[in-house]
């Protein structure tokens, strides 16, 4: 592959940093890492499920990030880099063993979504996410997901990270991100449809509607 001048300059900048960047490392940290604080705080709450634990985690994350700032590759995604530090810190501090849950193939999970949709249709719940305010129910369902699936859902669905960035944060292949994400979404939908049935949101006359007394 032949490099043109522009491409070569970009590559060199990626490796050695921009020669015209006169900011000190601390200033670059201020401009690139600190603006991610709200996102990291949100991610920390989703990991710990407790705000005061999350506060300690955020503090520790930024301290580690600051100490390792010279390792950050200029031009790469700072938010994903901080998420990875945050998660590693969390796993280390809580001494959590990452339990590996056998996971079905992502393709099968994707096809499984059709069955869930059919069941929602049967109960007249196909527009449940548009017609009803399910905010609290969704938050609770996410909190109750097994950690392996919750991690993928939080990063992709709540933090809007790409599959590749999520894979980098979690240290797993992209294919595993897909299967965990799709399974997580399926579990969420099952739990929310169940909630909707219990809450009497199913359309009268459908199989999921409460019996008239």
């Amino acid at each position, binding site marked *: 592959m032949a490099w043109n001048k522009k491409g070569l300059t970009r590559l060199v900048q990626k490796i050695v940093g921009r020669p015209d960047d006169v900011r000190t490392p*601390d200033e670059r940290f201020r401009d690139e890492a600190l603006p991610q604080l709200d996102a990291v*705080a949100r991610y920390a709450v989703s990991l710990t499920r407790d*705000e005061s634990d999350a506060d300690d985690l*955020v503090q520790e994350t930024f301290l580690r990030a*600051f100490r390792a700032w010279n390792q950050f590759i200029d031009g790469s995604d700072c938010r994903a880099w901080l998420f990875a530090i945050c998660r590693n810190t969390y796993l280390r501090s809580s001494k959590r063993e990452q339990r590996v849950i056998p996971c079905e193939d992502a393709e099968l999970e994707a096809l499984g*979504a059709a069955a869930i949709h059919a069941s929602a249709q049967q109960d007249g719940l196909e527009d449940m*996410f548009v017609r009803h305010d*399910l905010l609290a129910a*969704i938050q609770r369902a996410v909190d109750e997901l097994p950690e392996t699936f919750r991690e993928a859902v939080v990063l992709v669905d709540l933090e809007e990270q790409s599959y590749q960035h999520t894979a980098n944060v979690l240290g797993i292949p992209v294919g595993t991100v897909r299967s965990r994400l799709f399974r997580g979404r399926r579990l969420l939908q099952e739990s929310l449809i169940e909630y909707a049935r219990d809450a009497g949101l199913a359309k009268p006359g459908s199989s999921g509607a409460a019996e008239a007394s």
Partner: protein
Amino acid sequence: MKGHDMLDCDAVMRQLWDYLDGELTRDREAAVREHLVVCKRCYPQYNFESAFVKALSASRRDHSRPAEIRERVLATLRAEGFAA
């Protein structure tokens, strides 16, 4: 011909999440979109999943004391020598 083959329902269902997440190549994305707009079977499911993903994304919780946590982080960093 628009440079890609028409997909069948099964192929679209397999790629629906990737489509909603913006993870497909431009050609694949166009092929899925092309199928969805004409398919009475797939379109309702696309609608359902799309509404679900939007509701899920809207459910994220911000930290309730952002200013306080920012101050704490800055104090920790300054104690470590951060000067910007």
